[in-house]
Structures are given as structure tokens and as C-alpha cells.
């Protein structure tokens, strides 16, 4: 299923100088902004826990909350549609387009529609779709996919962006993001005004009033959901929350974790279509609720992954993402959370390398505003892969030997002695081994292997413990 094998994608990413520059600039800013914004809250750890409980409460009661949401959306004058999978969601939107004779669609950012491949489905039926978020628009022009949940064009430098806008739209070359942004504003204006239908995602759906909340900075979401005569909002079914109190903590941790803002510029709270006495807003409102594997995840031991609010903090914090970027992950959701969500949504064997794309350092878990234990789930996914028969014979024998050695103090000491003696005997270059025979070349193909130190850690530890107890006497 992987278009490019993961190892190959990693090599390409590491060799891409432009990508490395863009990743360095982007993820560093992202990490610093989040740390500052979370650090200045009333109590960061207590708030994370509060947000976590809000998500847990919602997931525990998903069916009731979705029914309550549906009742309230309808009471507000909207329509609710349900989609079991990606194709059903796309079909719903195509049907709406046919009913209303839609030709031009303007879209605000939505990861769910990336998941269902909606743009291709619409274009295949001759419907014109324009992404309205600045980053999404630019990568749509480039014919690329988003590489970050929040910053879709994180992989692009400003220089490459200017060149693209110059080549595609004739913008005079500049290195000023301000000039590029203003140029795109002008282009997009007409698109909003001519659109027959606007599509948006949903950040939170508040069951008690049938309101969908979207979070944005540019104004493109407000425009896409206010200017065209029809608004279609699409949500994964896990986006529903119970109360406005839960919204308050979640939305603020989302903006602080995603971009380091106390509040994003626009928080749009949309409750159905325009009322008869209102002067503007869409005449029709549709909410489409998508499953696409989520109910299966809820039944599994990975239910926790549904708590994710898609802030992207774990991407910025991850040393693997920082080096390979989003495209290497091969699908819509990159980074540590993507390494979990992708195999869960598409099946473990579609992305067998992703659970290993982590050093399990835990930076993702520390960054997560809803305390998702990402490393733990990555380990469980590795276990699933092993049980599904993924590893090679050599790997299995190796792990068996390792398990024997680590269960017996005698074998452990013996193994350590042998490894220590061997590596020191073979080391040439300042205590490093340049090359090891298979299967150990998996390490030395990429970096030198350090010879074991002498005396060993155990010997030094025992000596130290002895001298301590002697000193006390």
C-alpha cells in the first residue's frame, strides 16, 4: 500500500536540503511557541488532565452524544448525514452537489476530507474545488499533499513558495511572506464570491447545543462557511464533546499547543444555517459524521488515540518528524500520532514501518495536551506486527537469544564480558568499530559502533557501592 517504501522515503527526506532547512525553521518555532504558551497558563499539568478527562467523558458516551448532537443540529435547521467509510462521505457530498447544481466549491482546511480523498472525487465529477487556507492553497497549486496537521506546507521554504506563485500565477518574485500572502488574498477573493458551496472540517462538535466549532487564523474558514449558499461540515465521529465547559478548556489548549496562541484569531461557533431573520450566512447546512474505522478503534485497546485533538504538537516535538518531515509517513496523518492512526485506520500491514519510526523518547507524550500515551501504543502496535508474523527468522532468533540472556544474571554477565572483549579487540578508530558483519551492519551502515568501556558499568557500580559502604563504617 505504501507508495514509496518508508526506508526510501526517509533517505529522500534526509537528502533533501530544502526540506531540512524548512523543518529546522518550522519545528523549532513550533516547539518554542507551545512551550511559552502552555507555560504561562494557570496550571499546565492540571489543565492537560482536565482536557484529557473531557475527551474521555466524550468517548465513553459517544453514541448518546452523537444522537444528542444530531437532534440539536436538526432543531437548529440543519441536516445530518452519516458515512460508514470514505466513499460514502464523498458520495454524500456529490449528491448534495448534484441536488444544488454546484460547480464551484471552496474548502477550508479539513484533515477528514484528506482522509477520504474528497478533492479527487469532486474533480472526477467535473466540480471545481479550491483550498482556501493559504498553505493548503499553495500545496494544491504545487500538486502536493499536506505534510503537517496544522502547517500543511511546513516542508516548503519561503523561497520555493515564491517560485511556485511566480510560475503558476505570475506573482513577481519576492522573499517576503507578507507580499506572498497579500497576493494570494487577492486571488482568493473571487473564489469565495463565486463558490456555490463551502466545505469545512470540525474541531469540536458541542452536543448540548448542536454547534460545530472551528478554529482558524486566516479568516478562510469564516469565509468558506459564510459566503457560499451551502455549508457542508465534515467530522470524524470522535469530535463530539458533551459541554461548553469542555469546549473552553479544549479549544484553548488546542490553540496554545498548535500555534502558541492564547486564542486563534477566529473561533467560529456555527449552529445550523442562517435563521430566516438573519441578513447573511448559508441557506443550507449539512453535517456529515464519518466513521471510517473509528468505531473499530473504540473497541480496541487503542481507544485512547481517539482523544487526539489534532494540534500537531507531537509532530513538532518528535526527533523523527523533525528530521524526515510529514511526507515520509506516507499518508494523511504524519508524526507520532500518525504512526498510530495510519495503521489503525488503514490496517497494520499498510504501514508496517511506522510504529518503529520512533525512539520512544516520550517527547510526543510530554507535548500532548490531552496526555495521550503515544509511546505505549507504538509498542503495542509493534507487538501486533510481530504477532501478525511480520519479523524475519533472523530477527525472531535474535530476540529469543536476547530474552534468554536478559532473564539470567549468569548469561547477562557472560554476554557482557564477551561483547566487551570482542568489541575492544576489534575497535580500531578511537574506540569505535567502523564495520560489523551482518546482521549487525544494520547499525554500522549508518554510524560507528562504540566499543564497550572498561571496566564495565557493573564493575564500576559494584566498586562504588563497596567504597560507599566502607566509608560509612
Amino acid at each position: 500500500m505504501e507508495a514509496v517504501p518508508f526506508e526510501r522515503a526517509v533517505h529522500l527526506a534526509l537528502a533533501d536540503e530544502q526540506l531540512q532547512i524548512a523543518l529546522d525553521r518550522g519545528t523549532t518555532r513550533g516547539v518554542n511557541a507551545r512551550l511559552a504558551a502552555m507555560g504561562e497558563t494557570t496550571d499546565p499539568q492540571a489543565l492537560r488532565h482536565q482536557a484529557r478527562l473531557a475527551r474521555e467523558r466524550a468517548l465513553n458516551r459517544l453514541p448518546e452524544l452523537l444522537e444528542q448532537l444530531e437532534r440539536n443540529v436538526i432543531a437548529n435547521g440543519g441536516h445530518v448525514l452519516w458515512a460508514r467509510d470514505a466513499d460514502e462521505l464523498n458520495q454524500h457530498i456529490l449528491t448534495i452537489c448534484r441536488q444544488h447544481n454546484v460547480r464551484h466549491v471552496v474548502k477550508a482546511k479539513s484533515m477528514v476530507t484528506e482522509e477520504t480523498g474528497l478533492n479527487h472525487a469532486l474533480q472526477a465529477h467535473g466540480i471545481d474545488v479550491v483550498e482556501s487556507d493559504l498553505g493548503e492553497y499553495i500545496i494544491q497549486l504545487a500538486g502536493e499533499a499536506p505534510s503537517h496537521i496544522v502547517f500543511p506546507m511546513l516542508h516548503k521554504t519561503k523561497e520555493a513558495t515564491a517560485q511556485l506563485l511566480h510560475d503558476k500565477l505570475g506573482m513577481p518574485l519576492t522573499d517576503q511572506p507578507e507580499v506572498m500572502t497579500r497576493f494570494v488574498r487577492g486571488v482568493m477573493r473571487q473564489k469565495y464570491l463565486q463558490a456555490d458551496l463551502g466545505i469545512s472540517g470540525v474541531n469540536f462538535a458541542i452536543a448540548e447545543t448542536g454547534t460545530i466549532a472551528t478554529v482558524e487564523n486566516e479568516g478562510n474558514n469564516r469565509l468558506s462557511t459564510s459566503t457560499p449558499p451551502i455549508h457542508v461540515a465534515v467530522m470524524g465521529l470522535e469530535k463530539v464533546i458533551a459541554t461548553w465547559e469542555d469546549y473552553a478548556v479544549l479549544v484553548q489548549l488546542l490553540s496554545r499547543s498548535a500555534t502558541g496562541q492564547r486564542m486563534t484569531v477566529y473561533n467560529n461557533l456555527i449552529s445550523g444555517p442562517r435563521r430566516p431573520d438573519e441578513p447573511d450566512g448559508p441557506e443550507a447546512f449539512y453535517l456529515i459524521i464519518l466513521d471510517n474505522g473509528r468505531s473499530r478503534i473504540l473497541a480496541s485497546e487503542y481507544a485512547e488515540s481517539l482523544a487526539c485533538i489534532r494540534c500537531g504538537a507531537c509532530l513538532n516535538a518528535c526527533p523523527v518528524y523533525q528530521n524526515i518531515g510529514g511526507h515520509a509517513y506516507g499518508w494523511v496523518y504524519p508524526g507520532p500520532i500518525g504512526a498510530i492512526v495510519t495503521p489503525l485506520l488503514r490496517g497494520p500491514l499498510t504501514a508496517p514501518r511506522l510504529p518503529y519510526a520512533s525512539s520512544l523518547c516520550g517527547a510526543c507524550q510530554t507535548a500532548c495536551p490531552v496526555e495521550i500515551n503515544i509511546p505505549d501504543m507504538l509498542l503495542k502496535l509493534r507487538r501486533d506486527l510481530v504477532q501478525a508474523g511480520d519479523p524475519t527468522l533472523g530477527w525472531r532468533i535474535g530476540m529469543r537469544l536476547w530474552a534468554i540472556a536478559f532473564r539470567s544474571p549468569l548469561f547477562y554477565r557472560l554476554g557482557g564480558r564477551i561483547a566487551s572483549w570482542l568489541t575492544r579487540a576489534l575497535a580500531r578508530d578511537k574506540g569505535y568499530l567502523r564495520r560489523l558483519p551482518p546482521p549487525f551492519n544494520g547499525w554500522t551502515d549508518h554510524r560507528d559502533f562504540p566499543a564497550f568501556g572498561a571496566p564495565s558499568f557493573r564493575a564500576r557500580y559494584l566498586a562504588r557501592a563497596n567504597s560507599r559502604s566502607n566509608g560509612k563504617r
Partner: protein
Amino acid sequence: MTSARDDILRALRTALNTQAPFPADETPTGLPVTRLEPSEDLVARFAAEVERVKGQVHRAENAIKALDFVRDLLVAHRVQRVVMWDEAHLPLRGLPALLSALDIAHVHGSSAAIAEAEAGITGADWALAATGTLVLSSGPGRPRMASLLPPLHIALLTEDRILPRLEDYLAAQRATRYSVFRYSSNVTLITGSSRTSDIEMHPVFGVHGPLELHIVLIKNPV
């Protein structure tokens, strides 16, 4: 054939039937997010926060000063067309007269017509001090477009509409059983002027929404 709705709800119920995925913990969400000292002056904090997100606050001692600020802004931006909330929803009288004195047209109607306006003038339901946020609800005489399409957004606000935080606004709505979400199809929380950080996470102000946000903050009559 069963409906997608039934299939999905059944799958969710089956998933939850064996065991809820998380321990039931109904500890209410009570801790507000943004720091705000009880002694803090809400007006000063609001103004400082708005400036932080590149909006501008013009503090007016009275209605006459407020009208002066609006006039100066309209003149400085060479505004010829304005889209505006009905006067009944603004905390300031005398704008129609000011507009005609400046020979500024008041546009209504379609988005295309409103898109020609150089300025939008609105009130606000409430403001939130801790984050420098305006709360605007749509309704009769309160078009959404006025705070969205024109490059200049002027919001008129009296000081007594400033609440401490988002949590306080939502608690006040709870007291009215959230009627605002029944009557307004759109409630927007606006914090600063539109911005993006899409290009290398470098902040740029003025994207698809207004390029500039000016808040004329009017002292309450004593």
C-alpha cells in the same frame, strides 16, 4: 439494507458494551486556562491583549470622542463604502449622520456588494479581557460580513461589556440555557486581525479576513 446511522451507532454501542474504554471520572471542568489576577483592571488588560495580537484599541472618554475616532479611521483609510450593523445594535448614536457628512455610502445586500466596502462597522456582544477577544453573534441587523469581508474592521464597544475570560462568557450563556446558539447561526470569537504562519511559521498579519482591527472602547456614562 441498514442505514449508515444505525450501523455506526450499533458499532459504537457494541464497542462500549463490553467495557467503557476509560474510567468514569466526572470531575467537572473548572479551572480556567488563562491567568488573570483578581485585582487586574479588565479594561487595561483587554487593551494590552488586543495590542499584543496586532489590533488597536482607541479609548474614548465619551460618545463624541468615539465618533471622532471613527471619523479619523474612515478618513485615514479613504473609506467610500461601509457595511454596518443596524444602529440599534451599536453602542453609539450618530453614525448615519457622520457617514453622510463624509459622503460615505452604506452598502447592503449580496456578498459581492459588501466585498466592495472598505470598512465594516460592528458592535460586539461581549469582550474577553484575558485574551483580547471580541464576541460577535449574527442576527437581524447584525450581518456576519461586516466583520469579515472589508479590509478594515471597526468594532464599537463599551467598557461594561468586558468579561474576564472565555469561561465567564460561557457561564453567562449557560444561565440563559445557551439561547444565543439557538438564535444566532454564527457566533464568532475574534482575537486580533486575520493572520497566518503557514510560510515557515513566520507570522503575517492580514490574510483572508480584515487586514486591520480597530476597537473603539467607550467609557460608560457614570
